[in-house]
C-alpha cells in the first residue's frame, strides 16, 4: 500500500508474568532497531486503560499506522487492542499480536537469557508481518429471518413447527402429495399402543394450521443461490390435478381404470391412479399419480365439484430464506432380488412391510396375513442390510431395526399367542433407557433368539421356505421351516440425496449420508453456514432422535435469525482475477463450496463467495499461480515472518 509503514511496538510486562522472565528493557531497545519501527514502548499492563492510551496516543500523536503488541495470547486481548485502535481511528486489522507470555515467559522461566533472545526474534517476526498488513473491512449480510425446510417428515415437521412457534416464517417443501414422511406408515409406535398416523396427526394439523408455515406439497427444490442470511431458492410445484374443491367423495377412484401398487403400503396393496395417499393425508384431498395416470378423463366426468383439472401445469416458486434445513430422510434398505429369498416368495417381507400389516388401518386392517394365512413359524432375520452381513449390506448399524423388530415380535406374540418366533441376530442393540425393556420383554415372551456369526441363508422351495442358520452359541446348524421371514432391514441414504447435493452445497460421508460440520460438536449443521441437517439425512435415527434433531436445527436456525445481520471475519480468501488461469485447483480444496468457476470472456476464472469462506486458507496453499490469497495471511505476509527468523535485516 502507498503510505509508508510506521510500526509502533508495545511490549507488556503483564506484571511480573512477562517481566519476571524476560528483560523487557532489552527487548524494547532491540525493537527500536528494527526496520519501520517508529517507536517502541513498554508498560506494566498493556491491556489496562493507561496501556491502551499508549497505543491510542501512538496512533494519534506519533502517526503510527501499524501496531505490534507483544503480550499475552491473542485469544485473551486481541479484541481489546483492536477496539483501542479503532477508537484512535486506525483500522483494527493493522494489529499484529506477539504472544510472549504463553509462548515465551511462562514456558522458559528456567532460561531467562534465551527466553529474552527468543522474545526478540518473535517480535522481529511480528514487526516484519505488521509492515505488510493491510486494512480489512468486516463483511456483513442482512439477515432474512425465514427458513426453507426441505422434507415434510418428522424432522422437517418438527423443525418447521418450532421455528413457526418462535415467530419465524417457514417454507416447507415436500416432494410427495402429502406431508408426514415415513413415520406415519408405522403400524405401531414402540412403547405405545398407537400407530404412526395417530402419533403424528396433531403435528400435521398444527403445521397445516400455523400461519407462519407455507407448505408446498408435490414440490421439488430446483436451484439455490446465495448464502447464509440470504439464500435465493427456486422450487417447482408439480401438478396434483386435484384442487381444494375435492370432497373426497371417491367417485373418481371408482371410475379410474388404472391400478398400481401402493407405495404407501410398500407394495402390499394396490391403489388407483387417483387416490388419497393415506387416511390423514395433508392436504386432505385426492391426488393424481402423474406417472400412472393415462389422462382418460373418466374422473373429470364424475367429479361433481369439478376439482380435477388434467391440464394443470407445473408452477415455479421463488423463496428467499436466511437458512436452509435439509430433512430429506432416508430410504429403507432395499434387498436385491434373491437376497434372503426377497422377491422370490411372498412369505419373505421387510420390516417396513410388516409394519403395514400390523397397522389397523393397513392393507389387512391389522391382521397378520402372509400369503393369505396367519403364519405359525416366523423367522426374523436381523441386521439385514447392516453390519456388512451381506455383500450388498452397509457397514454401519441402523440403530432402529432391533427395537422395532422386537416391538413387532412382542406385538405378534400378544396377538397370536401360538406363533413361534425365531429371532436370528448378529447382535442385539437395544440401547438407552427404554428400548432395553423391549429386549427383556421379548426374552420373557418365549421368542427363540439365535445368534449367528455366519450369515443365515433362506431357501425358497416349491413346498415352502426354510431358513438355515448356524447357532453360534450352541455351535449347531438349524434348519427352520418358515411361514414368514421378516427381514429387519435398516436405513440407507435417501435416493434423493444426489438431487439435493446437486442443488445445495453439502458434502457426503463415506456411508453416503450428508456430512455434518462436526460429528460430535456440530451434529445438525452442514460445514457451510446457514445450512442445517435434520433427522436421518446424516445417519439412521429413530422417531425420537429424529424429532430431537428437528428441534435442534430449529434452535440453531433461530440463533442465526436472531441476528440483525451476519458478520463474516474479513480474513477470507480472495482471488485476483488478472492472475487466475482458471485451473480450478482451488475449487476442490474448499469444504464449504465457497469457490466456483465463472466464465469471463471465453475463459474460466475462480470466484470466491466471501460469505461462505471460513478462512482456512487451504485454497491459497494450493493455488499454483498465487492468484488466491488470504487476507491477513497472504503469502507475502507469512513469508515476511519466515524470513525474519534470521537476524539478516530485510525490507528496511
Amino acid at each position, binding site marked *: 500500500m502507498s503510505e509508508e509503514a510506521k510500526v509502533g511496538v508495545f511490549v507488556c510486562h503483564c506484571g511480573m508474568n512477562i517481566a519476571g522472565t524476560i528483560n523487557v528493557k532489552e527487548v524494547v531497545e532491540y525493537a527500536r532497531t528494527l526496520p519501520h519501527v517508529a517507536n517502541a514502548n513498554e508498560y506494566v499492563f498493556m491491556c489496562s486503560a493507561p496501556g491502551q492510551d499508549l497505543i491510542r496516543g501512538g496512533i494519534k500523536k506519533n502517526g503510527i499506522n501499524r501496531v505490534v503488541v507483544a503480550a499475552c495470547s491473542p485469544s485473551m486481548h486481541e479484541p481489546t487492542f483492536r477496539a483501542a485502535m479503532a477508537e484512535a481511528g486506525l483500522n483494527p486489522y493493522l494489529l499484529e499480536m506477539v504472544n510472549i507470555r504463553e509462548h515465551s515467559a511462562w514456558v522458559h522461566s528456567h532460561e531467562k537469557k534465551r527466553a529474552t533472545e527468543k522474545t526478540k526474534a*518473535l517480535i522481529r517476526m511480528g514487526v516484519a508481518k505488521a509492515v505488510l498488513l493491510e486494512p480489512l473491512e468486516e463483511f456483513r449480510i442482512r439477515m432474512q429471518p425465514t427458513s426453507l425446510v426441505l422434507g415434510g417428515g418428522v424432522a422437517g415437521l418438527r423443525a418447521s413447527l418450532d421455528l413457526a412457534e418462535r415467530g419465524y416464517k417457514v417454507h416447507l417443501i415436500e416432494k410427495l402429495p402429502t406431508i408426514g414422511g415415513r413415520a406415519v406408515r408405522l403400524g405401531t409406535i414402540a412403547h405405545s399402543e398407537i400407530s404412526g398416523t395417530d402419533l403424528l396427526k396433531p403435528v400435521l394439523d398444527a403445521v397445516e394450521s400455523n400461519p407462519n408455515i407455507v407448505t408446498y406439497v408435490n414440490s421439488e427444490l430446483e436451484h439455490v443461490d446465495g448464502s447464509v442470511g440470504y439464500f435465493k431458492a427456486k422450487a417447482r410445484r408439480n401438478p396434483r390435478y386435484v384442487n381444494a374443491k375435492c370432497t373426497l367423495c371417491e367417485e373418481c377412484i371408482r371410475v379410474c381404470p388404472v391400478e398400481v401398487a401402493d407405495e404407501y403400503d410398500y407394495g402390499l396393496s394396490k391403489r388407483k391412479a387417483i387416490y388419497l395417499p393415506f387416511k390423514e393425508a395433508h392436504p386432505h384431498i385426492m391426488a393424481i399419480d402423474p406417472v400412472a395416470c393415462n389422462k382418460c378423463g373418466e374422473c373429470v366426468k364424475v367429479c361433481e365439484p369439478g376439482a380435477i383439472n388434467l391440464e394443470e401445469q407445473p408452477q415455479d416458486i421463488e423463496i428467499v430464506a436466511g437458512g436452509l434445513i435439509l430433512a430429506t430422510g432416508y430410504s429403507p434398505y432395499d434387498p436385491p432380488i434373491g437376497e434372503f429369498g426377497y422377491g422370490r416368495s411372498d412369505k419373505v417381507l421387510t420390516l417396513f412391510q410388516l409394519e403395514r400389516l400390523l397397522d389397523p388401518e393397513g392393507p389387512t386392517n391389522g391382521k397378520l396375513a402372509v400369503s393369505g394365512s396367519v403364519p405359525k413359524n416366523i423367522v426374523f432375520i436381523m441386521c439385514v442390510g447392516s453390519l456388512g452381513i451381506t455383500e450388498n449390506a452397509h457397514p454401519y448399524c441402523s440403530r432402529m431395526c432391533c427395537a422395532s423388530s422386537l416391538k413387532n415380535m412382542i406385538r405378534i406374540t400378544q396377538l397370536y399367542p401360538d406363533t413361534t418366533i425365531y429371532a436370528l441376530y448378529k447382535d442385539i442393540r437395544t440401547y438407552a433407557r427404554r428400548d432395553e425393556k423391549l429386549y427383556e420383554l421379548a426374552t420373557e415372551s418365549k421368542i427363540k433368539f439365535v445368534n449367528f456369526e455366519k450369515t443365515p441363508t433362506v431357501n425358497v422351495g416349491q413346498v415352502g421356505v426354510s431358513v438355515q442358520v448356524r447357532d453360534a452359541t450352541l455351535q449347531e446348524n438349524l434348519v427352520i421351516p418358515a411361514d414368514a421371514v421378516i427381514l429387519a432391514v435398516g436405513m440407507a441414504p435417501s435416493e434423493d440425496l444426489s438431487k439435493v447435493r446437486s442443488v445445495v452445497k453439502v458434502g457426503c460421508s463415506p456411508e453416503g449420508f450428508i456430512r455434518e460440520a462436526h460429528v460430535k460438536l456440530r451434529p445438525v449443521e452442514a460445514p457451510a453456514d446457514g445450512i442445517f441437517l435434520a433427522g436421518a439425512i446424516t445417519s439412521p435415527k429413530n422417531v425420537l432422535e429424529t424429532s430431537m434433531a428437528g428441534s435442534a436445527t430449529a434452535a440453531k436456525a433461530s440463533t442465526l435469525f436472531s441476528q440483525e445481520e451476519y458478520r463474516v471475519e474479513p480474513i477470507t480468501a480472495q482471488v485476483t482475477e488478472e492472475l487466475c488461469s482458471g485451473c480450478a485447483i482451488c475449487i476442490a480444496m474448499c469444504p464449504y463450496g465457497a469457490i466456483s468457476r465463472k466464465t469471463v470472456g471465453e475463459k474460466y476464472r475462480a470466484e470466491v463467495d466471501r460469505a461462505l469462506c471460513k478462512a482456512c486458507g487451504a485454497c491459497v496453499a494450493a493455488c499454483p499461480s498465487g492468484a488466491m490469497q488470504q487476507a491477513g495471511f497472504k503469502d507475502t505476509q507469512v513469508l515476511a515472518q519466515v524470513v525474519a527468523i534470521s537476524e539478516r535485516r530485510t525490507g528496511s
Partner: protein
Amino acid sequence: MSESFEPKIVVFACNWCTYAALDLAGTSRIKYPPNFLVIKVMCSGRVDPQFVLEAFRNGADGVLVAGCHPGDCHYIEGNYKALRRITLMKRMLEKFGIEKERVRLEWISASEATRFAQIANEMVEQIKALGPLAPRLEVSA
C-alpha cells in the same frame, strides 16, 4: 561444537488446536526448550511448502507443522491437505539432503500441551545430533 549448537525450529501452528495447545503449555507452566519460533496460521492446510523451504533458507534447522487431529480439523479436512503436501514435501527434502528428522507434521490438539513439550524436546535432541543446517546452504560463487 554441536554441544553449543542450539537449533532454530519454526512451528507453523494452526489457530484452533496447536496454537491453543501452546497457550495451554504456557498457562500450565509446562517447560520446553526455547528453540521454537511460532508462526500462526488459521489451519495447517494453509501451510505452503514454500514456507518450509524459505524457513530452511533463512536459517531454520527444523520445521514443525502442526494441526488438529484427523477428524477434528476446525475446517473439516484442512489437516489432510497438509498431510498430502508435507508427505510429498518430505520426499523432495530427502533428495535435497535435508534429513527427515528436520521436518515434522504432528497432530496436536488444544489439550495436548504436554505432548507438544515432549515433541519439542525430542526434536531439539534429534536436530542437535544432526548439527546445524545453515553452513551446508552456503555456496560461494
